[in-house]
C-alpha cells in the first residue's frame, strides 16, 4: 500500500477490514495518521502527540496479527482525551495544576482499548477538568472546529468538553477517540462537528483512572465517524471493573450487531418540554425531519412529557460543582502536579490552587464550596438531589410507554470562539438538551442529521432506557441511513 492519503478518512470498520485482509499494516495506517496529525496542528486538537509510541504500538500490533492473535481493534490508530490517565504518558486534564503529571498506571478504559489492539496517536485537548462547552477553558488554548461556515474564515468552537476528540474525528486525524460526558461533553461536541458520540449508561465504562469531575455523573464513551464505529469502540471500552465501585456487573453486548437491524415497530417519544425556550427554526426543522425519518422506517412516534426538564440544568449546577469541589480538593501541590511556594502551608495551598486552576474551574469550586457550606447544604444540595430524583422519575414514566426518545442534541450549531464567554449561564445553556440524562444515568447518542443554512452540522439525540444502548444503535443506524450525512469539513488547515 503506497497511497498514504487512502489510509486516512476510512471508517474504523473499513480500516479494521483492511488490516484483517492485510491490505495495509498497522504501521502503514498509523504512519499515515501521524502525518495528518502533524499537518493539523492549527486545529490544536492534540495536547500531546505520541508518534514514537504509536509506531511502537503499531509494530507490536502487526506482530500480534502475524502470530494469529488479533484483537477486535487490532492495529487501529485512535486518540485519547487527556482526561484518561495513560501510563508513562503525560496526562493533564487540560489543567495547569497537573503540570507534567505522568501516571504510573493506565485507566481501565484505555487499558481495554490497548488489550483489544488499538494504537494511541496522542492525547486530545479538552476543557479544563471537562468543565466547559466550547473547549475555551483548556490551559492549552481552544481547539478549532475543522468546520467553518460557508464563505467565512472565522474560527468556530468544536464544542466541549471533548472538543479535541470531536475535532480529531471530524478532521480524519484519528479513526475514533475516547471522550467523557458529565453534562453533554460527548454529545454536544459530536453535534457541532458532524460526528457520532454516545454516552452509555452510567457504570458501563469504568471511571478508574479517569480524572474525576463529578463522580455521580461522569461517564466515558466514544466519538466516531459512524454509528457502527461508535458501537465497535464502546464494546471495547465497556466492561465491569472491580476498581470502580459504581461499575456495572454483567456482560457487554455486541453493540455493533444492533446496527442495521430494522427499528420497525419501536415506539419513539418526543418530549414536548424540549420545544420550549424559543428553539431556533433550523433545529426545530431537523427534529421534525428526524421524526419523519423514523416514521418512514416503521416507528411509531408519540409525544411524551418530561415535566421537570427545565430544572435539570440548575440542579446540575449544584450537584456537579459540589462534587467537583470535593474531587478537586486533592490538588494541594503536595504529591503531584504544580506547587507554588509560600510562607505557610495554607499559603502554599492557596497560591498553588490560584495559579493552577483556570477561571471556570475556580468558579465551579467556589459554587460547590458555597452550596455545601454550613447552613446551605439542605437548601441547595439536598434540594438538587430531590429534583434529580424527580427528573429520573420523569424518564421512568416516559419509558413505560416508549422505547427511546428523540430530541435535538444542542440548541445551536457551532458558534464562534469567544462568542459566548461573557455570561457563564449562557454557556451552560449549551447542555440544555443533554444534561438530563446524566442526572438520570441513562444512555444517549448524538448523530449528525444535516447541515444548517450556513453549512454547519446539526445533531439529533436519542435517549434510551438504562442498559439499552442496543436499541439506540438500532435506531441510530436507521437515522444514519435516512440522513445519509456525507458532508465533510473543507480542509483549510
Amino acid at each position, binding site marked *: 500500500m503506497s497511497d498514504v492519503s487512502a489510509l486516512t478518512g476510512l471508517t474504523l470498520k473499513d480500516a479494521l477490514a483492511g488490516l484483517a485482509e492485510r491490505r495495509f499494516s498497522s504501521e502503514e495506517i498509523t504512519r499515515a495518521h501521524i502525518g495528518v496529525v502533524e499537518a493539523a496542528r492549527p486545529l490544536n486538537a492534540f495536547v500531546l502527540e505520541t508518534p514514537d509510541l504509536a509506531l511502537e504500538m503499531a509494530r507490536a500490533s502487526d506482530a500480534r496479527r502475524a502470530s494469529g492473535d488479533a484483537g477486535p481493534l487490532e492495529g487501529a490508530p485512535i486518540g485519547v482525551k487527556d482526561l484518561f490517565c495513560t501510563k508513562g504518558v503525560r496526562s493533564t486534564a487540560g489543567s495547569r495544576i497537573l503540570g507534567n503529571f*505522568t501516571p*504510573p498506571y493506565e485507566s481501565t478504559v484505555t487499558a481495554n482499548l490497548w488489550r483489544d489492539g488499538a494504537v494511541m496517536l496522542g492525547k486530545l485537548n479538552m476543557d479544563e477538568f471537562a468543565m466547559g462547552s466550547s473547549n475555551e477553558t483548556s490551559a492549552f488554548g481552544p481547539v478549532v472546529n475543522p468546520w467553518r461556515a460557508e464563505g467565512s474564515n472565522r474560527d468556530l468552537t468544536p464544542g466541549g468538553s471533548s472538543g479535541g476528540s470531536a475535532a480529531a474525528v471530524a478532521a480524519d486525524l484519528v479513526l475514533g477517540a475516547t471522550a467523557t460526558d458529565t453534562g453533554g461533553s460527548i454529545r454536544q461536541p459530536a453535534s457541532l462537528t458532524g460526528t457520532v458520540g454516545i454516552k452509555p*449508561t*452510567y*457504570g458501563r465504562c469504568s471511571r478508574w483512572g479517569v480524572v474525576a469531575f463529578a463522580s*455521580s455523573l461522569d461517564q466515558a464513551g466514544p466519538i466516531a465517524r459512524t454509528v457502527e464505529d461508535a458501537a465497535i469502540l464502546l464494546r471495547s471500552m465497556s466492561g465491569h471493573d*472491580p476498581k470502580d465501585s*459504581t461499575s*456495572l456487573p454483567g456482560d457487554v453486548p455486541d453493540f455493533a450487531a444492533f446496527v442495521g437491524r430494522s427499528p420497525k415497530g419501536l415506539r419513539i417519544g418526543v418530549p414536548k418540554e424540549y420545544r420550549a425556550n424559543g428553539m431556533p427554526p433550523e433545529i426545530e426543522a431537523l427534529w421534525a425531519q428526524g421524526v419523519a425519518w423514523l416514521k418512514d422506517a416503521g416507528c411509531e412516534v408519540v409525544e411524551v412529557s418530561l415535566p*421537570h426538564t*427545565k*430544572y435539570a440544568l*440548575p*440542579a446540575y*449546577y*449544584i450537584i456537579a460543582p459540589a462534587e467537583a469541589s470535593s474531587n478537586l480538593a486533592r490538588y*494541594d*501541590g*503536595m*504529591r*503531584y*502536579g*504544580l*506547587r507554588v*511556594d*509560600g510562607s*505557610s*502551608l*495554607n*499559603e502554599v*495551598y*492557596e*497560591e498553588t*490552587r*490560584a495559579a493552577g*486552576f483556570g477561571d471556570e474551574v*475556580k*468558579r465551579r469550586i*467556589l*459554587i460547590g*464550596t*458555597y452550596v455545601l*457550606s454550613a447552613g446551605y447544604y439542605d437548601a*441547595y444540595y*439536598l*434540594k*438538587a*438531589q*430531590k*429534583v*434529580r*430524583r*424527580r427528573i*429520573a422519575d420523569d424518564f421512568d414514566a416516559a419509558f413505560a410507554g416508549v422505547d427511546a426518545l428523540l430530541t435535538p442534541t444542542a440548541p445551536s450549531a457551532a458558534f464562534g470562539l469567544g462568542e459566548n464567554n461573557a*455570561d*457563564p*449561564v449562557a454557556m451552560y445553556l449549551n447542555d440544555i438538551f443533554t444534561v438530563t440524562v446524566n442526572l*438520570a*444515568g441513562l444512555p444517549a447518542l448524538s448523530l449528525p442529521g444535516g447541515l444548517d443554512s450556513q453549512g454547519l452540522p446539526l445533531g439529533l439525540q436519542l435517549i434510551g432506557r*438504562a442498559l439499552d444502548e442496543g436499541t439506540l444503535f438500532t435506531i441510530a443506524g436507521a437515522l444514519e441511513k435516512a440522513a445519509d450525512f456525507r458532508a465533510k469539513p473543507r480542509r483549510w488547515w
Partner: protein
Amino acid sequence: MTIDAATVRKVAKLAHIRESEDRLDSLAAELNGIMQWIEQLNEVDTDGVEPMASAVALTLPLREDVVSAGGDSAEILANAPGARNGFFVVPKVVE
C-alpha cells in the same frame, strides 16, 4: 440570598483558593448571577421525595480486606514536587 464580597472571601478561604481583593466584587456578581438562576429549583415540589445521590441503584460492593496494592513508593513519588529518601517533602506544618 445574595453573595457579597465577604461571602466570596470566606468561600475562597474554605476552598483554599487565593482570590485578590480587587476580584471579589466581580466574582460575587458572577456567582450571584448563577445562584439566582439556580433559585428556580424552589418552584419544584419535593416534599417527600427521596434525594438521589447515585445514578444507579447498586449497593456498593464489598471486597476482602486485603492489601491489593503497595510497595511502589518510587512510582508514587516520581510525580512529587518534592521528595527525599522515600518521603514527600512538604512545607513545615507544625511551628
